[in-house]
Structure formats: C-alpha cells, structure tokens
C-alpha cells in the first residue's frame, strides 16, 4: 500500500472536499442505494445487513408509514393500505390504472390533476408520495452509513420511461428532500457498473428484466463516451408476470376459482415466486397452497413446465430487442457484449433464450439486482465533482417521439425518438383569427399517428400574443428537451419579439403548486418551516455560484477579463458573500441575480473558449501526426 500520495504536477494541491453522493435504483420490486467509498462503488445495507429494500409502503392511520420488509410482511393481512409496485403507477393517468392496475388490489380515487390517488388509512396518497417515502428511507440509510448529508443523488429510471414518468420520479426525489443531479437510464447505469467504458468499446446490449419493467438498450461505448443508440421495451412486463403465470398454473391445477380474494391472491403470488426462485437451481420443486376450506393442495412444478409457462413472456421481450437493433441500424451479430440486469435474469431460461437471440453468453458476473445502483453511484460520484479528471460522459437519447396534436386528431412528430439529448426544435405557428391573443398546444409522446393512441404529456396555453390580423402573428415555439429527457416549452412572437407566457397543464403529473403543498405538509411533520427551507436553498445556490465563480476566476480570470469587467464581477460577488450569511432570502436571490448578470459575458466567453480548446487540441494532434510521417 502506498504511504505517500504524490500528486501530478498541475493538480490542485488544496485538499478536495469529498462530496457525499449516492446512486439510487428506485425499482418496482426492490430499491437500493449505493455509494463510492474509498474508490469502490457498493450498495449500502440497512442495520440488519439487508441491501434490498422492498419497494413496499404501508400506510397507517397514525404515525409514519412503514417501508420495506415490515410493510411487505403486512401485505397479506393489510392489502389495501400496503402499496407495492408503485413504479407502475408513476406518471400514469386514471384511465391507465384500469389497464395497469388490473392486478392491483388498491382502492383508487381520482385526484385533482387526473392522477390516480391511492385511498389508504393515512388518506389519499399519490404514487409520487409513495415513491418519496421509499426514497426517504434510502436517504436516511445512506446518510447514516456515510456519516453526513447527501449533496446529490442520481436516480435511475427505465430507458423507456416517458416524460410524465420521468417528471414523477424527479418530483418524488424533490419531495424526499434530495438534490437529484441526474435521472440515469437503468441500462446505462449497468454498463457503467461493468466498466464497459474503460474497455476498447463496441456495441453492447443491456437486457434488463426487472420485477415490473423490461428494457433493452443498445449502447455504443467509445473512449469514455456512452451513446445510447436506441432503446425499446415494455413498461408493463417483468418478473411479476412470471409469478402470475405460475400462480395461474397453480390455480388451474388446484382448481382455485378466478375470483379468489385479495388474501388468497397474495398467498398464491408468494408461493409462485418461491417456486420460480427454487427452479433457478433445481429441476423441479414442490408447491403447496392452503385452500379456503382448510385443505392444502400440493403438486410439483418442473423446470420444463415452468419454461413452457414463461416462454411466451420471454418471447415478448425479444420483439423490442429486434426493434432496438433496427432503430440502431445494426444486426444481432454486431453486438459485442450482452449485459444481464434485473432479478428475473436469474431465470436460466431467460439467459438461454437471450443468449440464443444474440448468439453469445450474456455477462452476469455482477449481482443483477445491484448492478444498476452500483452504476448510478459511480455516475453520482463523478457528477458531484469527486473525480474531476474522469473523462466519462453519457450521451442519452429521448426514448419516445414528441409530437403535437394537429387538425383531425393527428400527431405530428416534432422530435423523433432516439434523438440525442439535450435537443430542441423550434416550430412557427400563426393565428387564424384577427386579434387572437391566446393559443393552445397539445404535446403528446409516442410513435402512433393518432393522438388518441399516443400518451398525452401536457397542454400548453400560450398567452399575451400581441393582437394582430389573422395570420399576421408568427409565434415561434421552442421545445427543449434537457439532459434528463424532460420537456420545456418557450414561445416568442417573431414580428414584435414579445415573449408569450406559457401555462403548463401536465396531463398526469403534479403541478408545481401541488408539489409545493406536499412539501409544506411534509415540512410540518419535520417541524421545519417553509421559510427556513427556502432560505437554505438560496444559501446553497449562493455557495454554488460563488464556488463556481471562484474556481473559474482562478483558472482564467486574468486572461479573459479586463480590469473593468473583473472589478464589476468582484463587487457583485463581494455583495453576495456579505448577504449570504444573513436571513433575508430575497436579498440573497437578488445578489445571485446580480452576480449572474455581471458575469454573463464571462461565462459565455469561457464556454466558447472550452469549445475552441476542444477543437484546437485536435488540430494540433493532427498537425503533429502529419509532421511525423
């Protein structure tokens, strides 16, 4: 072991503050939290040594909800208050629940914003709040293990998640008091965990069959850059369906009727899961279920029978595999590695079929339950700034096309799926009435032609359009998708340069005011008042601005600024420093704005300079190569 650490010349001598960061796999069945400690990414266990937290929350009429194993244990006795597989409900609408929730025993009520609420002993709870309750437990676990407050987290989502589902996940993080640095696609996280970016590279398929979702992603890895070439999947297919297939078989064999009660169904699912897990190693397993009339039914399930039951489900995963290959413009033989993710890939038949499809033995060395959290932790560590020299960069794509509703209920694509994000597309619209000052846009996500076959994302109301003759106004609407895959819309009338104000009505998500209310409620519990929280948020932002500025000035302030520009920035920064410690949240906000204004030109110059440097470096390399020849 090295006793002395010798730093490279040019490397900062000042001790770098290690920021506590974690990766969270918010799964359908289980959730995990992982962090990089002493250079090693590992999942963090709870007090009992358990790494997996069952994604189950039980609400009671008083006290905090139970999360995890104790909640799972109560699932059979208290099914209506015990929420499992809530991930399937994230970003979903009331009418989706009729489909998705067919097998969910919960009592749904309609919420204000078309979001299904779960009626429980603790009141009506949104899926976002249930997820936030899971995240809070993981946050507490991480902060306990790491011995400090988390500065930022990366939360993983299925690559196939649409905008509403991603937004709901981000909202859950916010509700749980987490600083979400990035939403990361689960398959990308898995590739990071395997360190595939460190290798020579190539095209990799990530086959992720979890409890409730299936994703296939084709990634190209090249010199530290991960590029998602395509993604496909099924957000309502997973290991739970395997259990259901086995449960169906048991019901048929044991003569249990289709209208069995909640308790009976839960028991059956439990027995089915045990049988499935036993068949990973064994070629046959005994199955026993208690019947309603106090008798037991016993039988035997062989591996061959099990394979027949799950084959149709596995086949259902191969269709998205073909689609992903086609979208990436490659054939199965071009794939250089297949990575297995998700507990359901322990099923030998899955490995066999997937291996057969891609023509190679899949990679499964890292625990398929932990691999996503481990990758998220590595990414969180880099994003938090703990490895400034790391070259890794993830380039993601938008999984589903974004479209606008046009005449006749047709969807016109504005951003096609698999476009690398961030991305933007501007489109011009005009008014069709004299003096028209408002306009409505309906944004949908999906590949189908009819709006009714796509998912409704949001309706945008454009207001304050200057009144002009019909066809006279030219409104340029810009759809911007950020690096998390979330959509933002801005609009400007071109002839007058008047910005339109936009009101967003998310079709399924929570509005900002609803989140604000929930935050307030949860604050009440935490006995911390809203005012204080806002102040703290402003102080954190002030620190971030000052720290970034200081680092930038130290690096190139002398080169890029003349004395006058530098003085203006220093004055603004000094002022921010002086108000930062105070308790006036507005004064801090204004001082931040003043610093941003004073340094706007500088920030832009730095960005342009970094682009130039990136290009200049190349030219020099090529020149030198030519010189050698």
């Amino acid at each position, binding site marked *: 072991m090295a006793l002395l650490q010798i730093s490279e010349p040019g490397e900062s001598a000042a001790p770098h503050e290690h920021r506590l960061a974690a990766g969270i796999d918010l799964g359908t069945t289980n959730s995990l939290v992982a962090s990089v400690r002493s250079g090693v990414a590992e999942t963090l266990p709870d007090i009992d040594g358990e790494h997996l937290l069952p994604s189950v929350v039980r609400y009671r009429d008083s006290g905090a909800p139970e999360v995890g194993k104790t909640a799972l244990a109560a699932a059979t006795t208290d099914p209506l208050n015990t929420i499992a597989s809530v991930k399937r409900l994230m970003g979903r609408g009331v009418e989706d629940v009729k489909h998705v929730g067919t097998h969910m025993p919960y009592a749904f009520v309609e919420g204000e914003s078309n979001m299904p609420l779960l009626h429980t002993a603790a009141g009506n709870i949104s899926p976002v709040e249930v997820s936030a309750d899971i995240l809070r437990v993981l946050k507490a676990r991480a902060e306990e293990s790491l011995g400090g407050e988390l500065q930022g987290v990366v939360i993983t989502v299925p690559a196939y998640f649409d905008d509403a589902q991603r937004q709901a996940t981000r909202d859950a993080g916010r509700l749980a008091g987490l600083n979400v640095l990035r939403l990361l696609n689960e398959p990308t996280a898995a590739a990071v965990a395997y360190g595939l970016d460190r290798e020579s590279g190539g095209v990799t398929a990530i086959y992720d069959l979890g409890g409730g979702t299936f994703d296939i992603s084709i990634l190209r890895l*090249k010199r530290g850059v991960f590029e998602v070439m395509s993604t496909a999947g099924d957000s309502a297919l997973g290991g739970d369906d395997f259990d259901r297939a086995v449960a169906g078989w048991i019901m048929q064999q044991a003569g249990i009727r289709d209208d069995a009660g909640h308790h009976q169904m839960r028991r059956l699912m439990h027995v089915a899961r045990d049988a499935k897990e036993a068949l990973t190693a064994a070629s046959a397993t005994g199955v026993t279920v208690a019947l309603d009339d106090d008798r037991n039914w016993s039988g035997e399930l062989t591996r061959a029978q099990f394979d027949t039951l799950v084959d149709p489900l596995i*086949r259902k995963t191969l269709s998205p595999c073909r689609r992903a290959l*086609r979208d990436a413009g490659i054939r199965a033989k071009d794939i250089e590695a297949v990575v297995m993710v998700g507990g359901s890939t322990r099923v030998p038949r899955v490995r066999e079929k997937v291996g057969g499809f891609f023509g190679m033995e899949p990679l499964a060395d890292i625990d398929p339950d932990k691999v996503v959290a481990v990758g998220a932790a590595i990414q969180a560590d880099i994003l938090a700034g703990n490895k400034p020299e790391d070259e890794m960069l993830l380039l993601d794509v938008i999984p589903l096309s974004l479209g606008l509703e046009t005449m006749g209920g047709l969807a016109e694509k504005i951003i096609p799926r698999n476009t690398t994000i*961030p991305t933007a597309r501007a489109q011009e619209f005009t008014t069709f009435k004299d003096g028209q000052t408002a306009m409505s846009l309906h944004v949908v996500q999906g590949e189908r032609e009819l709006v009714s076959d796509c998912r409704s994302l949001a309706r945008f109301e454009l207001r304050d359009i200057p009144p002009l003759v019909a066809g006279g106004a030219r409104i340029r609407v810009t759809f*911007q998708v950020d690096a998390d895959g979330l959509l933002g819309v801005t609009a400007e009338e071109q002839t007058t340069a008047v910005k339109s104000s936009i009101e967003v009505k998310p079709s399924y998500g929570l509005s900002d005011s609803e989140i604000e209310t929930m935050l307030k409620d949860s604050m009440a519990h935490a006995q911390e008042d809203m005012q204080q929280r806002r102040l703290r948020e402003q102080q954190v932002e002030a620190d971030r601005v000052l720290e970034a500025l200081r680092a930038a000035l130290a690096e190139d302030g002398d080169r890029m600024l003349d004395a006058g520009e530098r003085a203006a920035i220093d004055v603004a920064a000094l002022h921010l420093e002086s108000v930062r410690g105070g308790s006036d949240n507005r004064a801090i906000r204004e001082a931040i704005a003043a610093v941003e204004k004073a340094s706007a030109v500088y920030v832009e110059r730095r960005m342009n300079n970094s682009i130039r440097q990136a290009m200049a470096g190349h030219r020099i390399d090529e020149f030198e190569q030519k010189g050698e020849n």
Partner: protein
Amino acid sequence: MAVDLSSTHFGLFGLPQSFTVDLAQLDSRYRELQRAVHPDRFVNASDQERRLSMQQATRVNEGYQVLKDPLRRGRYLLELTGYTFNDEHHTTSDAAFLMEQMELREALGEVRAAADPFAALGSVIDRVTSDFDGLAGDLQALLEADETDHDAVADTLMKMQFFRRLDEEAQELEAALEDELD
C-alpha cells in the same frame, strides 16, 4: 482572433465547408465538443451556466445530426447559399425517377401478399438504398462542381427525400411484420 462560433455547423466542428465530410473525424469532434459543453459537466455550476451548457450541447447535437446525414448536409449547404427550398411545391419532370417511384410504391404495396414478405421487403429496401446512394453521389458532384446549379441540387434533394420517406415506410412495415410474428 476568435473563431466565429455562431457561424455554421462546419465552423463549430472545425471542418471545411464541403459536402465531403470525414465521418470518423466528425464523430471524434462531436465527442470532444460534448465533453466540453455537456450539462453533466455543469451539475454543480450556477443556473446560468447550466442553461448555457444545455443550449450549447443542443447546438452540438443538432450540428452533428445535420453533418452526419448526406440529405440534411446537402440541404444545409444549399440553404447556406441563400437558396430557399420548399418541399411541398417542388416537383420534378424526371420521367425515369417518376417511373422508379411508382414501381417501388407498388412493390412495397405488394409485400404483404408475397410468398416470403421479408425477402420481398428486403429487395425493396436494397433498391431504395441503392437509389438513395446513387443520388448522394450525384449530389456530391453537383455541390463540388466549379459552378453550382442550385436548382439541380434542390431537385436531387427532393428525390433523396422521397427515397428516405419510402425507406422509413419500409422499416415501419418490417416492424409491423415482425410484431405480427410474435
């Protein structure tokens, strides 16, 4: 002294403004640029820098998409000359092209009824690809001629656009046929 970054996609990527693009070079410059501007590099920066980073990364992505694709690249080069291109109102009187267009549409329409739909579709896609590539060659010659015939360029782009659309339809049909197998 400074490179004008607001200029063109070619300028941004430090490539000569020409239809011929070294794709390997484009690829590696794309990655270099994203390493410099991508939002992941700015998660701890101020809101202002994060906004700017998103805008720049968006521009780099857009430029990459345009330069990578011969059709979009050709169209972009034509637009840089100030030529306004109007898809909907542009028509051609090229009889051979119109005939090819009809035949391919017909062939695509008959795929489902074929004894081996995948083979039939495969031969349509091969023909569409070779037509497209042939036109891309024409486009290169036109754009790199001493005196560019803008109308001829626009005409070629329109034809390429047609084959591109046909290719997309063929891909969708392939997806639909595969889904029906499951």
